[in-house]
């Protein structure tokens, strides 16, 4: 995958671009955001494991070669080296595909980065099944679960380019380990003008009376489509974008659960351990309501076009509509 030329969809000026209203892959927004950040903050250093063309850290590498470290195909070494850089005052961003970042280097992230509460930013791209043709070996569907389980870790899944740019700026300001989950494929613009991302804060598009959908990543746009489709059927369904799955915005969850008896979660991730699990854990203990989780059903992904895979795994607006209709 790394060797395949992947043209950036982002053209034009890099610095200052906020990606508002633009359909871009979140990894492209990351590449531009990182470049912009590097210009403003000398402490930022970037590490990659031979995938800089795909993760888009190559832009930073080109502009700031002395602050970019290609670690070779050695993810474990990369994570612990990032830890060392943070210990001497740098703000390291370490990037590779989500499967390798969260899986191959999990112990390094737990033992070195999180136990010492180090200021390392892990920005993983190619998460989820929209990786497409590369198939299951390259589709992380467990990474939010793996990262969420580690104390001190913050876990963020932005939904579009506009939000991604803000996430990258916000985590650079925050002191502590963060895992950011980005995608390979182009995604529609979702977040409205004036939106300000804050770590741990959800965005309430609308709170519904019949059901509320809690989503993140690419599923936010599907949730918004589903809301419109359900409105046609006379139903009042809310949508909440929950980019930070740890720490969860529990106030937003309580508001949603107090206004409707049904909560539907939607994520491009396994229903085991991700957003759906996090929401279910909180609500079952604090405000029990009916919860249905949309996500991959404890299976691996596979090769195919992203749209085909999304359909097969039920990650669509239609599936959300069906779930609401049969459970409300």
């Amino acid at each position: 995958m790394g060797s395949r030329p992947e043209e950036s969809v982002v053209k034009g000026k890099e610095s200052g671009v906020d990606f508002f209203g633009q359909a871009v892959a979140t990894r492209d927004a990351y590449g531009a955001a990182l470049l912009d950040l590097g210009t403003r903050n000398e402490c930022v250093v970037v590490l990659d494991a031979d995938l800089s063309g795909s993760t888009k850290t190559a832009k930073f590498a080109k502009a700031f070669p002395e602050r970019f470290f290609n670690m070779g195909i050695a993810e474990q070494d990369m994570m612990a080296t990032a830890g060392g850089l943070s210990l001497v005052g740098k703000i390291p961003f370490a990037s590779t595909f989500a499967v390798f970042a969260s899986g191959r280097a999990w112990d390094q992230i737990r033992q070195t980065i999180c136990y010492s509460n180090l200021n390392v930013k892990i920005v993983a791209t190619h998460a989820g099944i929209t990786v497409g043709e590369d198939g299951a070996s390259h589709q992380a569907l467990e990474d939010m679960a793996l990262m969420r389980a580690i104390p001190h870790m913050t876990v963020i899944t932005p939904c579009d380019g506009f939000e991604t740019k803000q996430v990258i700026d916000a985590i650079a300001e925050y002191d502590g380990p963060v895992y950011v989950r980005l995608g390979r494929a182009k995604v529609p613009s979702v977040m409205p003008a004036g939106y300000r991302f804050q770590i741990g804060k959800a965005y309430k598009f609308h709170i519904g009376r019949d059901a509320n959908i809690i989503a993140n990543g690419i599923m936010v746009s599907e949730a918004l489509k589903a809301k419109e489709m359900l409105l046609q059927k006379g139903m009042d369904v809310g949508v909440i974008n929950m980019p930070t799955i740890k720490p969860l915005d529990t106030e937003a969850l309580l508001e949603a659960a107090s206004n409707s008896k049904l909560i539907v979660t939607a994520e491009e991730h396994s229903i085991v351990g991700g957003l759906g699990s996090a929401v279910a854990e909180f609500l079952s203990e604090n405000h029990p309501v009916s919860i249905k989780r949309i996500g991959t059903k404890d299976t691996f992904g596979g090769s195919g076009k992203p749209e085909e895979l999304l359909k097969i795994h039920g990650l669509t607006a239609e599936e959300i509509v069906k779930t609401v209709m049969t459970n409300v």
Partner: protein
Amino acid sequence: MAAVTQSRDIYFLKEQARAVRVEILRMLAQAGSGHTGGSLSSADIATALYFYKMRHRPDDPKWPERDRFVLSKGHAAPLLYTVLALTGYFDKSLLNTLRKIRSPLQGHPSSKMLPGIEVSTGSLGQGLSIANGMALGLKLDRNPARVYCLLGDGETQEGQVWEAAMTASHYFLDNLCAIVDLNELQIDGRCSDVMKIEPVPDKWKAFGWHIFEIDGHDMEQIVDALDEAEKIKGKPSVILARTIKGKGVSFFEGKVEYHGIVPTKEELELALKELAGNGE
């Protein structure tokens, strides 16, 4: 706290190493569990670092220009705690709390709980990468501080060590000095039986490192190697220190079972007598 006394005087350093061994044995016996063999085998090396080579300020543990020490073989925590206490990072009485509930002296080093510990370790194989990261960052800042990293020989069976070995040489990290405690023992037996690591010097050379081969209990050889390593430019240095696990207590020496068990009361008494007799 008293300023650290540092000296290159070999007699002084040997005396300190003896005091370090005494404290290690006392604290382990008191704790009732912990890693004896590997703490004793590295005792002379750690003494040379903390009482001679490293530029550090126990009363200002975050001094930006301090030399850094990463205990990659984190199970030798009793050794690290002892040299930190004896050089004045915290009161010696804390050593009695090793492994006790809420003690900052955790079973393996925890950086957020005790001054002087740069990073938490315990999962073997990660320290050299961390040290590389520090060395890279220090170079970027033109900070003259050096980074020292102590590894076990069994530990070098971890693949990540060799990823890091490549990284250090690829990035010309001459501000980094690794030290491998070659005591030839790990938990399940001799390294040569569990998973052969030899030829050790050839491996490090092949990875682009400058190597020093020394007797890890000969204080003169240790300080010489540490001094010489500082002069090597353009590549990282590694001190390959041949040691004896359990060194200093005759009935622990070379005994694989004393990796993870502590002296009984009687053994402690005998051991302290032996160490007292070793004075020159």
